[in-house]
């Protein structure tokens, strides 16, 4: 939600909430979800608001007071496999997830109230190739929702942790898995599937939050005869065409549109799937009640580098060419920062925010990339090329934040490239399917940069360099503080206006998560999970991380009196 949106836009949702809310306890309603960003006593949605700005109006912790920030409590998450979830906070209770556990915690003391443990078979890691993680829960009407690595969606009683329902989405032994934090929009629980490295066929689903009944499924790769199928060859390539949807979408209640990023086409090597391959590497605008597709925009037609389109979609009011627009912004793994009109999907700006050599530019008239000579040559001959960014992307999944105060996006940008060569690989159900050979190239002295980006130009107003690539989300506040973490475990605060480093605290492991801030009894708190993981830890071969111990815990901070 943007703070400037007039209140009447919320009324239909508020009315619906009155009609359908469970009356037993004071349960967070649809209206409260829609107002999340403006009600900092709670954090009820992934992204700290439907518009996923990860911006808080709280200002007790500001550029001056942040030096007095100290830990209030710490709780182990009993997890060695990466802590990437965003916690939720409701009425003094914090909810948090890992790949296998769900916790309710007294948000003021750090003492656990209840836990729910999942049990997986010994083959579960085959499906969850990018990490056995979870990115957080969702809340509605006293129910807590989460997804599972074996591709189920479950609902728990938020008060007790008792399982209310469990619905199967897919067969995980075929390479389908879920880590997504669900989205509740217009009364519908929405989830997306992960399958991009196993030759799956991606989709989004709508569920009845009360019963777990599946209401709709929208495949991200059309079957023959469906709209978009003309962008696939007349083979069975579409049946294993990818298009995963593993990061949480955003929602505009006024337009009643859900926006969801769709990932890579499969396999990575595009030689056997000529065409644009809709709706891979795209954003979809859909009706939450039905999954009806209202508009789409494709970032990377015929994606051959695993650039994806999953990254978070941030809403804001931004001036483009002198006109105030309601936009959707994505810093794509392909290295371009896209600004779209979120009513109709019109492309307003697309500028590089890191080194990009796969394309020369994005054509604003056609909305398509102008591919570089090197990429054209590789497509023609199959020869190896060096191209930026690599599949790690100009920015990975870890979300950026947007401050309406400064008008800037705060993103941990990656600086990298790779040698890439298409190869042949037969498809085998349940096995990884990528069909290429490559060599990563990260500068060992400068793996990434925290950038304060102008959304329209893609240029950094200020930046802070990292030695090791950074996979932490960022958080922006009205106190003009930007919080983020590092792979080496530091939790840091920067001045949002000029990038001055204001404060830091060494946590017990690397930080690859999503910090939040919230308020209770007049005191502002900041919470972040520490617990190293991500595809970079496992797949980059960076031996410097040998001295960063794994093991998850939650940290909550506040100002000393």
């Amino acid at each position, binding site marked *: 939600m943007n703070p400037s949106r007039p209140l009447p836009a919320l009324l239909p949702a508020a009315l619906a909430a009155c009609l359908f809310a469970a009356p037993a306890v004071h349960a967070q309603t649809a209206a409260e979800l829609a107002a999340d960003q403006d009600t900092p006593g709670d954090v009820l949605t992934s992204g700290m608001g439907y518009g996923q700005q990860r911006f808080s109006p709280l200002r007790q912790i500001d550029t001056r007071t942040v030096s007095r920030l100290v830990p209030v409590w710490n709780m182990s998450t009993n997890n060695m496999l990466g802590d990437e979830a965003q916690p939720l906070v409701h009425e003094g209770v914090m909810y948090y997830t890992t790949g296998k556990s769900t916790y309710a915690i007294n948000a003021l003391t750090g003492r656990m109230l209840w836990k729910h443990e999942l049990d997986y078979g010994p083959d579960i890691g085959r499906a969850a190739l990018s990490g056995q993680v979870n990115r957080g829960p969702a809340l509605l009407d006293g129910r807590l929702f989460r997804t599972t690595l074996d591709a189920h969606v479950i609902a728990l009683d938020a008060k007790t942790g008792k399982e209310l329902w469990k619905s199967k989405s897919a067969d995980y032994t075929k390479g389908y898995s879920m880590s997504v934090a669900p989205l509740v929009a217009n009364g519908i629980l929405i989830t997306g599937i992960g399958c991009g490295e196993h030759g799956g066929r991606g989709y989004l689903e709508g569920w009845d939050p009360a019963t777990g009944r599946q209401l709709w499924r929208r495949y991200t790769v059309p079957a023959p005869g469906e709209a978009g199928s003309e962008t696939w060859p007349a083979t069975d390539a579409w049946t294993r065409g990818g298009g995963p949807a593993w990061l949480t979408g955003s929602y505009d209640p006024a337009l009643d549109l859900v926006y969801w990023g769709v990932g890579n086409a499969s396999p990575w090597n595009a030689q056997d799937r000529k065409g644009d391959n809709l709706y891979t590497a795209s954003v979809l605008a859909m009706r939450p009640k039905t999954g009806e597709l209202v508009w789409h925009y494709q970032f990377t037609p015929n994606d051959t580098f695993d650039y994806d389109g999953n990254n978070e979609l941030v809403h804001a009011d931004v001036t483009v060419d002198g006109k105030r627009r309601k936009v959707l912004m994505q810093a794509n793994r392909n290295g371009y920062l896209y600004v779209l009109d979120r009513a109709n999907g019109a492309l307003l700006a697309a500028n590089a925010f890191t080194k990009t050599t796969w394309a020369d530019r994005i054509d604003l008239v056609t909305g398509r990339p102008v591919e570089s000579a090197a990429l054209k040559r590789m497509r023609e001959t199959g020869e190896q090329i060096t191209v930026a960014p690599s599949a790690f992307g100009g920015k990975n999944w870890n979300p950026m934040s947007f401050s309406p105060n400064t008008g800037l996006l705060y993103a941990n940008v990656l600086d990298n490239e790779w040698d890439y060569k298409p190869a042949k690989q037969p498809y085998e159900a349940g*096995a*990884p399917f990528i069909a290429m050979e490559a*060599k990563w190239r990260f500068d060992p002295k400068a793996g990434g940069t925290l950038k304060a980006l102008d959304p329209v130009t893609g240029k950094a107003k200020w930046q802070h360099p990292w030695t090791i690539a950074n996979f932490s989300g960022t958080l922006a506040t009205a106190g003009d503080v930007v919080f983020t973490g590092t792979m080496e475990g530091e939790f840091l605060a920067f001045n949002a206006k000029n990038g001055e480093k204001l404060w830091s605290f060494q946590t017990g492991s690397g930080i690859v998560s999503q910090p939040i801030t919230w308020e209770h009894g007049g005191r502002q708190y900041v919470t972040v999970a520490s617990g190293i993981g991500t595809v970079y830890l496992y797949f980059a071969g960076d031996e410097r991380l040998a001295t960063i111990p794994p093991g998850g815990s939650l940290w909550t901070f506040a100002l000393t009196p």
Partner: protein
Amino acid sequence: MSTTSRTTRRGLLAAGLLSLSAIVGGASADDTAPPTPADAGRRLYSSHCSRCHGPNMVTPGTVAYDLRRFPEDQKPRFVLSVLGGRGAMPAWNGILDAEAIDALWAYVLTRGR
């Protein structure tokens, strides 16, 4: 491990390499020379194992096991781990057969060099 890590870093810098680089991915290349078991193992490793154990078995070795130090005289332990899984490592029974695991073992013995 920290000693190994520091040594490796010094090695990288001494060699003047600009990049932190390593081979990833998974596919059967169109080689002309007859493939050895270790070659076949390298390809299987790239597609099935490198995602967690690192490119060319180069890994910080904290969460994923550093296969470069797997004891050479403990092949049965290796086979058991691959088939049945161990900790976060998934069981590959039903996907990787005895021949594939033999090839992977041959590759592990190369230490990625």
